[in-house]
């Protein structure tokens, strides 16, 4: 993939077609992977010696936490590309990342609380990772709210891109200040989220679930980006032929 073809990938018509074509494949493969992962995680994996069966929530918490973090970094990278080359593709990618990332963060929070209930007795226990996940949710909300409140689309794109860049720079700082703050209060509770050296038959469903969630994120992303790109490229010839042309989407 030399640079030329990567640059060509950025051209709206090709990217739009790519999104439309790839989206069903992403969806089918992710559903399959998640089905296999869920089966493996819920039934095949042996119960944890300490937590019993409640540890199976990890198969739903870790993938969504991973995707929520990845989505923000992905949003910031496409925001940077958008600001530098002022490309509609990058801006529509960044804009459609936000709601998906926010939903995955919310998912990670809920499963984290459900995880905390059996393990520590209370749902919210100010664990370092859960707290920085909550702050990530607020960063997403700030991005979405800012995008909604600026009427002019190109101005909104660029302003929110700046916010995404500032946000992604601050995520590690916020995370480690929360971890530092947490070690002061509860140095004792070792968070179960730390990469446990778990047996392989516990591990493979987790890897499959993470892969499935990532592909699912890709499916949602390509769906939304196609929509955003269509709005931005409304006036172009190629889009009008594409929209009017393809009957199956009618």
């Amino acid at each position, binding site marked *: 993939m030399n640079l030329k073809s990567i640059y060509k990938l950025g051209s709206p018509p090709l990217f739009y077609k790519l999104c439309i074509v790839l989206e069903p494949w992403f969806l089918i493969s992710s559903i399959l992977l998640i089905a296999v992962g869920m089966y493996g995680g819920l039934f095949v994996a042996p119960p944890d010696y300490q937590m019993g*069966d409640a540890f199976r*929530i990890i198969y739903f918490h870790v993938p969504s936490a991973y995707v929520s973090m990845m989505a923000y970094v992905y949003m910031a990278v496409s925001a940077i590309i958008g600001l530098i080359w002022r490309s509609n593709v990058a801006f529509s990618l960044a804009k459609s990342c936000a709601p998906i990332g926010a939903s995955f963060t919310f998912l990670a929070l809920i499963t984290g609380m459900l*995880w905390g209930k059996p393990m520590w007795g209370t749902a919210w226990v100010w664990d370092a990772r859960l707290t920085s996940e909550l702050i990530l949710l607020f960063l997403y909300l700030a991005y979405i709210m800012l995008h909604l409140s600026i009427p002019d689309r190109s101005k909104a794109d660029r302003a929110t891109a700046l916010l995404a860049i500032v946000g992604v720079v601050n995520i590690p700082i916020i995370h480690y200040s929360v971890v530092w703050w947490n070690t002061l209060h509860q140095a004792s509770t070792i968070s179960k989220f730390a990469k446990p050296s778990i047996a392989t038959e516990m591990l493979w469903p987790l890897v499959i679930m993470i892969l499935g969630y990532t592909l699912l994120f890709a499916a949602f992303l390509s769906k*939304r980006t196609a929509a955003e790109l269509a709005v931005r490229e409304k006036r172009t010839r190629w889009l009008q032929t594409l929209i009017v042309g393809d009957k199956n989407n009618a």
Partner: protein
Amino acid sequence: MPEIFAMGGYGFYVWGSVLISIAVLVINWITAHKKFKSTINEVKSFISKGKE
């Protein structure tokens, strides 16, 4: 079969998180799909309006 749902006493939490995950993902899919549909129709009407 019933002991599967028991999940060693934590059935509520495990199945709860499963259901919530599926629910959120399905809602995600529906909103993405609906947004795509409405945008395409909006662009279509813009194009047809542009034609006259």
